[in-house]
């Protein structure tokens, strides 16, 4: 009989380890001046350094060191007074140098922690994830495997390499062994990666887009019988590219490993690949055959010895912690938990805050960004923040507040702005979107509506107020939606002697 997740965690204790890779958003690469721009034509962003041509000499990007120190400080790490780069040697064509420049035994940041909160059966509880190290390295090139049955690397006829990505600054953040999570291992893993993403975003050092690969997570997981005090053999699951997948990968591995252990089989220490569709992992290469990387100090780069005054300067620039900021804004705006989560997950906190700072009502600001703007962004498959500015949203909201626009007209204005018709004022004048507030014009439309629906008008006169809806609808239609429905209702009811 196979164990499900709940049964598995009754018998086995999970232990986690998380490795997160983040591409920094520097303009140029880690060791050369090639552009890091995403999406360029193949091999248009390479040079002798990132192609590993003989005699080329790397020089470190100072901004990348600064960003890495900021990350270390935000994660409560010690910044090493002396750190070095090392060569990680392997023969695989994603690095044309036949090694990746990384850090080995002398990483730049060590011994930090990150506090997260998880929902447990007993309510929200804090959990501290300890950080082992934060080190600098470089990203690899992109491979395209051609031919073969599966389209994967296995059995491909040949592979094509684009080195535009090779050498983009990469920071690896490694946790210590995370024990004591009990059955909450999946939630801890997800909460950690989420909080880490938010911190990196607040530091402005990376795009942190998991789906586009600028942030990637490897999940190490092992199981041991509860109470045994042992540490089981771990698997390392790669290719986990969304927050939800982090959680699913942990669940998948707990279930898979517990069933193997249950059947008396041993866990093989290996790399596994996460399958987005099924939530399962698939075996990759086994670690027993893994390469021997033969690390040694990189002779072409000099040590990094950050000045302590500079470190303190950087520490002073650290932004408010995302968790602190979220709690503060939620209280200021009085937002329900669930809506706050939606705002955070949609990455809309910054723009909503800006919209409110300009003067918009908090409730309206949230509902415009989460509602109409997000809807239009989803249709176009783009980020909502790329469509319209907080100032424009605030302007539309203020026009609604002053009665110059109805919600319906405002939606047309927003649509026009997004369609590139200019500022809200431009769209209003070009499309002629003004609320008909002239009582005379409205009364003409009201009288016309009454004349065309005399029976309905009679029912309203007799006290059937809900029946007025049909008349209001007719007036709104006649004015092309440019009347304020509340105003129409008021005038109509007054006219029919009901106010």
């Amino acid at each position: 009989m196979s164990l499900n997740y709940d049964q598995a965690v009754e018998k086995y204790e999970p232990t986690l380890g998380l490795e997160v890779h983040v591409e920094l958003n520097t303009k140029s690469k880690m060791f050369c001046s090639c552009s890091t721009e995403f999406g360029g034509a193949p091999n248009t962003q390479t040079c002798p350094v990132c192609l590993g041509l003989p005699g080329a000499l790397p020089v470190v990007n100072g901004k990348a060191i600064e960003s890495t120190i900021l990350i270390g400080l935000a994660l409560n790490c010690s910044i090493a007074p002396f750190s070095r780069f090392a060569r990680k040697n392997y023969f695989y064509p994603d690095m044309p140098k036949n090694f990746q420049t990384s850090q080995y035994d002398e990483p730049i940041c060590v011994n930090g922690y990150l506090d997260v909160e998880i929902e447990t059966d007993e309510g929200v509880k804090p959990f501290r994830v300890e950080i082992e190290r934060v080190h600098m390295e470089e990203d690899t090139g992109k491979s395209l495997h051609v031919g073969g049955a599966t389209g994967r690397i296995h059995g491909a006829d040949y592979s094509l390499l684009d080195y535009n990505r090779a050498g983009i600054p990469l920071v690896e953040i490694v946790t210590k062994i995370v024990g004591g999570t009990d059955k909450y291992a999946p939630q801890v893993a997800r909460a950690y990666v989420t909080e880490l993403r938010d911190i990196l975003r607040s530091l402005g050092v990376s795009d942190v887009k998991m789906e586009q690969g600028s942030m990637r997570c490897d999940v190490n997981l092992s199981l041991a019988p509860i109470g045994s005090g042992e540490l089981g053999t771990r698997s390392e699951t790669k290719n986990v590219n969304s927050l939800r997948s982090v959680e699913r990968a942990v669940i998948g591995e707990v279930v898979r490993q517990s069933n193997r252990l249950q059947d008396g089989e041993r866990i093989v220490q290996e790399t596994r690949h996460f399958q987005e569709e099924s939530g399962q992992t698939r075996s990759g290469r086994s670690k027993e055959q893994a390469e021997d990387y033969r690390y040694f100090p990189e002779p072409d780069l000099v040590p990094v010895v950050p000045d302590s005054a500079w470190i303190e300067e950087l520490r002073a620039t650290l932004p408010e912690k995302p968790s602190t900021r979220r709690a503060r804004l939620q209280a200021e705006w009085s937002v329900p938990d669930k809506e706050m989560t939606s705002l955070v997950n949609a990455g809309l906190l910054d723009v909503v805050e800006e919209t409110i700072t300009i003067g918009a009502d908090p409730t309206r600001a949230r509902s415009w960004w989460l509602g109409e703007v997000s809807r239009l962004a989803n249709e176009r498959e783009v980020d909502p923040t790329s469509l319209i500015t907080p100032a424009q949203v605030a302007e539309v909201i203020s026009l609604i507040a002053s009665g110059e626009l109805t919600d319906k007209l405002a939606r047309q204005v927003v649509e026009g702005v997004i369609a590139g018709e200019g500022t809200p004022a431009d769209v209003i004048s070009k499309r002629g979107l003004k609320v008909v507030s002239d009582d005379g014009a409205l009364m003409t439309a009201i009288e016309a509506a009454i004349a065309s629906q005399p029976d309905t008008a009679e029912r309203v006169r007799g006290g059937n107020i809900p029946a007025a809806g049909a008349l209001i609808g007719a007036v709104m239609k006649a004015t092309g939606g440019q009347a304020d429905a509340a105003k129409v209702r008021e005038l109509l009811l007054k006219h029919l002697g009901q106010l």
Partner: protein
Amino acid sequence: MAAISRDDVAHLAKLARIEMNDSELDHLAQEMDVILGAVARVQEVASADVPPTSHPIPVNNVVREDVVRPSLTPQEALSGAPAQSEDRFKVPQILGEE
């Protein structure tokens, strides 16, 4: 006692993707053992107050500004490649069937 065995050399050759026949392995195992022995003599004079060094010149913190400079054209980048296709470097099969 040899510091490096024939098996070690065979393993290193495999990692470095260098094909070696039996007599080359025998020969190199002996030769590398002599080299390692010579280098090991340095340890006899290195005292605890001499930190290991990875760089001959005591210089730290050489960095560049984060400024983009022109890259090679794809044609230039690929000019030394043994094989290419679709503006990419073409390499032989990396892994066989599972």
